[in-house]
């Protein structure tokens, strides 16, 4: 217990890193998902193929592998570009690699979530809006999006719940996140079990907190609808 207290500030910092990683990755994943869904729904065949390649690739590759590929492979790419143009060594930070990897992976899942939600909005509504003289932008903003958000939320939040646990995987590249630090500290003081138990409870706390927040948001977007 004393050891845990002694290391508490360090682990609090690790927890903050994990939370920040989650938030940044969530923003990036949402952007990738929105872009992906737009691409999949777009008329152009090239776009559809591009997005299909992205989602297939990401869903077929283990997260761990992709994180290692981005961190070490990305660094190799930067080094080669740097060597070719005579730049000095530019470091790809662990945090940026983690955000990019998680956002890239979960963006692929969100692509499907968003696409599904868009398709749940009946086409008749868009036809009616057109008949009433709404522009495409107005239709999207006033009619499709508010419903799309409501349809997308349960799936969206589900993916985010999974993603917060996936933040643990990023410790493989040595990022000083909660899991990485707890592992190092546990081994350093030869009490791995007590530190991993602490991590267990912190992640459980995250999940309970997120579930609470998400259910409130879902209720808010579902207001006015009978259930």
């Amino acid at each position, binding site marked *: 217990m004393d050891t845990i207290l*002694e*290391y508490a*500030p*360090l682990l609090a*910092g690790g927890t903050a890193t994990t939370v920040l990683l989650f938030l940044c990755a969530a923003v990036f994943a949402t952007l990738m998902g929105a872009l992906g869904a737009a691409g999949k729904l777009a008329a152009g065949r090239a776009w559809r193929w591009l997005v299909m390649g992205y989602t297939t690739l990401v869903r077929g590759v283990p997260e761990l592998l992709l994180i*290692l590929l981005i*961190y*070490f492979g990305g*660094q*190799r790419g930067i*080094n080669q570009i740097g060597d070719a143009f005579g730049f*000095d*060594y*530019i*470091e*790809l*930070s662990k945090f*940026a690699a983690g955000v990019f990897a998680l956002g890239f992976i979960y963006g692929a899942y969100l692509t499907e979530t968003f696409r599904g939600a868009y398709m749940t909005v009946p086409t008749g509504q868009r036809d009616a809006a057109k008949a009433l003289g709404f522009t495409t932008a107005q239709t999207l903003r006033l009619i499709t999006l508010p419903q799309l958000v409501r349809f997308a939320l349960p799936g969206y939040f589900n993916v985010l719940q999974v993603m917060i646990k996936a933040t643990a995987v990023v*410790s*493989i*590249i*040595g990022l*000083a996140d909660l899991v*990485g*630090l707890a*592992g*190092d*500290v546990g*081994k*350093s*003081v*030869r009490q791995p079990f007590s530190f991993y138990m602490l991590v267990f409870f912190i992640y459980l706390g995250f999940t309970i907190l997120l579930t609470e927040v998400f259910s409130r948001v879902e209720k808010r977007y579902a207001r006015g609808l009978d259930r």
Partner: protein
Amino acid sequence: MKSTFAAVAVLATLSTAAQAADLKICVEGAYPPFSSTAADGSVVGFDIDIANALCGEMGMSCEMVKSDWDGIIPALLERKCDAIIASMSITPERMQVIDFSNKYYQTPAKFAGAAGMTVAELDGKTVGVQRGTIHQSFLEGEFPGVELKLYGSQDEAYLDLVAGRVDAIMADSIAISDGFLATDAGEGFAFFGGDYADPKYHGVGAGIGVRQGEEELRNAFSHAIGRIRGTGEYSTINAKYFDFDIYGG
């Protein structure tokens, strides 16, 4: 113009500016007492003290970069650090991808048994050893008169030594010292005999890893190791962590 600024800003957040330190050293931080994480997040231990001593000797400023053990060689290869000082044993497999300096330590193998025991008494006795280790091969090759009892894990060998089922055990000296002799169960037991570090069985020790082809840096480390051995700086660090000479024979 605006987009140029944006690109620069993105690059700046993605990358940390070139470090002021001359050398970046990859360390592990999860292998006490060689390398462990302190409460303030810094890495401390024998490896780190040696790293600082070597950098001082070479007249370079060094920065410790914490790296996960599994990613430590890729980190070196992708230039995230310039050298690995992480108790890495020099092995032929590793030498296919990186180069090593001379060893900076080699934990010897040692016998442990009831306090007061000697090697001369070993003939015909039973020695516990972990299965498939360098220690098993060493005992089979060099101590044919000893009966071996093999264990799946080192901890089982300790338990049977305490229970009296074996007369002695042989393993890495640090493993025995930290995992057994320093614990309550190890009371009344002690090391006996000499330090065993035969390259044929035990390899050549832990070295400093550098990228292949960086001969200058590799030689600089090897020379610096020799010099801190000579100046006594090595012994000072050694004494801080261990009560025997960890450099080996």
